[in-house]
C-alpha cells in the first residue's frame, strides 16, 4: 500500500471506512485473519505474538481519520452550511475543491466566497467565519442540496497527491496517513516482544479510538506515529518553528496530551544516534495525539511520539519530506531494536 493511495482515500473521523478496509486487508495478508480485529470505534487492531515474552508489549499507533467538514443544513439557494470535524482554520477553506459524501453518492463541491470586487473593507480585512462559508455542489435549491448532501454528510478535501520539489510531497491527510503507511511497513519489523498495531479511529476529535484501543490491549509501551506541524517558513522566529521538514522525524518530550516517559524519550534519541537515523527534537509544545490516550488508558503505559514534520497541516495541501517518512519508519525500527537490548 503506497502513501499516494492512502492519502487519497477519504475518511473523516467516525467514517474511516475506506482507510479501514485498506488497512485491514494488508494486516490480514501479513499477519493472518485470526490476528486482526476491529473494535467498537472501528479501530483496526492487529497483534503479532511475542517470541520472547520477557520483552515489553509495545503498541504502535497511527490514526486513520483526517479532518474535514460536515453538512449541517442547506440554504434556500441550495448551498450547504458546514461545521468542522477536527480542527480546521476557516482561512484554509476559501475557494477549495471538496468531495461531498462517500462512495457512489459522492459529488464534487467548491467552497465559495464573495469575489474581492464585492467585499467591503471590513470583510476584506477580517478572517472569514465558518458560518459564512458554504459548499456549492451546483444544486438549484434546498431540496436538491439536501437530497445530495443530507445533514451529517462528510465533506473532504479534494487534493491529488503530488510530488513536490526535491523529495517532498503535497497531499491532503498526510496527518496521519504517513503514520498509517509506516505502521503497515512495521508489520514485519524485527522485534521479539508482542506488537499491537493500532490503526485508530477518531483521533482528530479527541483521541477517542486510542482510549479504547489502549484500554483493551494494556501495553507496557505506546509509540504514536504521527504527522506534526512544521512552521519553518517565512520570517518565523526560531523559537516558533517547531520542526523543520527534511531534518528527520520529530521526537516529542511533551505536548498538550502527554509528557513522554523520559527514559523512553532518551532511548529513542539514543537508538536514532546508534543506528544513524536522522531525527530532531520537536521544539514547541503544541497539539496532542494518541499517546495521551494510550498513556492513561487502564493502568497506564509509557509513551513517546515519533512524528513526520508537515507544513500546512490540517489543510487541503500539506507538505512533507519523503525522507522524513522513511526515517520515521527507520527510527521506529531502531527503537524496537534498542528495546530488545533492554
Amino acid at each position, binding site marked *: 500500500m503506497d502513501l499516494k493511495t492512502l492519502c487519497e482515500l477519504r475518511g473523516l473521523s467516525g467514517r474511516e471506512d475506506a482507510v479501514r478496509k485498506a488497512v485491514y486487508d494488508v494486516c490480514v495478508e501479513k499477519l493472518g485473519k485470526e490476528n486482526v480485529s476491529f473494535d467498537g470505534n472501528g479501530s483496526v487492531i492487529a497483534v503479532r505474538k511475542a517470541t520472547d515474552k520477557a520483552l515489553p508489549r509495545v503498541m504502535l499507533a497511527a490514526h486513520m481519520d483526517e479532518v474535514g467538514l460536515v453538512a449541517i443544513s442547506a440554504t434556500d439557494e441550495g448551498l450547504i452550511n458546514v461545521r468542522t470535524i477536527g480542527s480546521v482554520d476557516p482561512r484554509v477553506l476559501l475557494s477549495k475543491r471538496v468531495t461531498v459524501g462517500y462512495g457512489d453518492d459522492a459529488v464534487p463541491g467548491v467552497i465559495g466566497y464573495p469575489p474581492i470586487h464585492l467585499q467591503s473593507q471590513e470583510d476584506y480585512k477580517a478572517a472569514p467565519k465558518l458560518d459564512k462559508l458554504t459548499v456549492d455542489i451546483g444544486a438549484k435549491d434546498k431540496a436538491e442540496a439536501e437530497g445530495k448532501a443530507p445533514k451529517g454528510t462528510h465533506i473532504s478535501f479534494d487534493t491529488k497527491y503530488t510530488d513536490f520539489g526535491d523529495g517532498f510531497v503535497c497531499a491532503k491527510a498526510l496527518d496521519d496517513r504517513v503514520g498509517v503507511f509506516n505502521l503497515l511497513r512495521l508489520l514485519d519489523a524485527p522485534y521479539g516482544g508482542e506488537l499491537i498495531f493500532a490503526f485508530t479511529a477518531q483521533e482528530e476529535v479527541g483521541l477517542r479510538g486510542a482510549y479504547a484501543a489502549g484500554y483493551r490491549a494494556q501495553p507496557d509501551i505506546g509509540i504514536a506515529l504521527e504527522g506534526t506541524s512544521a512552521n519553518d517558513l517565512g520570517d518565523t522566529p526560531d523559537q516558533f518553528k517547531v520542526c523543520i521538514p527534511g531534518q528527520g522525524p520529530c521526537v516529542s*518530550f511533551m505536548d498538550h496530551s502527554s*509528557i513522554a516517559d523520559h527514559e523512553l524519550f532518551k532511548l529513542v534519541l539514543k537508538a536514532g544516534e546508534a543506528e544513524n537515523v536522522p531525527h530532531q527534537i520537536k*521544539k514547541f509544545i503544541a497539539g496532542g495525539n494518541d499517546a495521551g490516550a494510550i498513556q*492513561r488508558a487502564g*493502568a497506564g503505559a509509557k509513551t513517546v511520539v515519533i512524528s513526520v514534520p508537515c507544513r500546512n497541516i490540517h489543510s487541503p495541501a500539506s507538505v512533507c519530506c519523503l525522507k522524513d517518512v522513511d526515517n520515521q519508519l527507520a527510527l521506529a525500527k531502531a527503537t524496537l531494536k534498542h528495546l530488545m537490548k533492554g
Partner: protein
Amino acid sequence: MKELIKQLTAVYGPSGREHSVADVIESLVKDKADSVRRDALGNLICEIKGTQDKRLMFAAHMDHIGLIVTHAEKEGWLRVHNVGGINLNNSRTRRVKFANGVEGVLCEQALKENEKSALTTLYIDIGAKDEAEALSMVDIGDIAVYAEPAFDVGKNRVCSPAVDDRCACALLIKLLNNLPEKRPTIVAVFTSQEEVGLRGATVSAYSVQPDEGIALDVTIASDTPELKINAVKLGEGPAVKIKDTRSISNPGVVKRMIDAAKAAGVPYQREVLPWGGTDAGAMQLSRGGVPVGTLSIPCRYVHSACEMVDMGDMDKALKLLIEYVRV
C-alpha cells in the same frame, strides 16, 4: 512534620520527572508498607493491610509545576513552555534550577509597545554565551523549577516551592506512621503528573481499584488582601472540600471527615473552590465510579516560589486523618 516538608520540597520533581521524590518517599515508608510498587507513569503505590476489606486510597501528588526547555537561541537564551499552571506574575526574574543542578534566572524579555506577556515572552538565562554552550549545560526537554529553598515564616509557618503538594506527601507519610490498629486497607498513592491533568491518579486509581478515594492537596487560602476566591483561611484548620471543578465530594465522605475532625477535637473549614481540581476528580471517574473527597491544606501563594502553609493546619490535618481511618 516541618523538617519532613523541608526534606521533601528540596527534592527535584516536576511533572513527569518525579522519580527522585518517589525514591525519598519509598525509603521513608517501605518499612511500614506490606507492598510498594511503581507503575508506568511513575506513581508510587504503597499498600498497608487493614482489619477491614475496604480499600481506602489516599492520593498526594509528588509533582509540581515547572518550565520545560523547548529551544535554545543563538545567544544562549532558553525558551520555555509551562508544565502545569505557571503564573506569569510569579515568574519574572526568578531563580530556577534543573535536575542536573544547573541554575539560571527566569526572565521576561523587554516587551514591545502593546505586546502582551505570555509564556513565549519568557526565557531562562543560564549564563551561557551561545547556543552551543547552553546545550552543553541542559538539553531540550529538560525542566526547570523554582529554586528557592524552604524557609520559616513567623512562628509556625513554612514557605517553599513545591509545598503544593509535598506538604500533603509529608502528611500521608506521617499518617502511615500513625495508623490506628483497626482500620481499612490503606493504599497510599504518591501520584505523578497531577499538575498536567491528574494523569497519575487516573491510572493508579484504575489499578488500585479502591472502594473510596481521598485526595490530599493544598487549597487556596483567601485571607490575603483583596483575595476573595473561597472562605478558607490559613491557620484555622484543614479544609474539607465540598466541590471544585473536577469533583463534587461524596456527601458521606464529607460528613465522616467532619465527624473525624470533631472526634479529633480539631477545627475544620468548609471549602468550595470555584476553579482547580485534585486527584479526587480522577479517582471518582475510575472504572464504575468511586466515592471521593479531598482534605485540603490551606495555602497562600499557590503556584509560586513561596507557597506558604501553617504547621498548625498540618498537625490538625494529621489528627483528623487518624480519626478518619479509625474503624
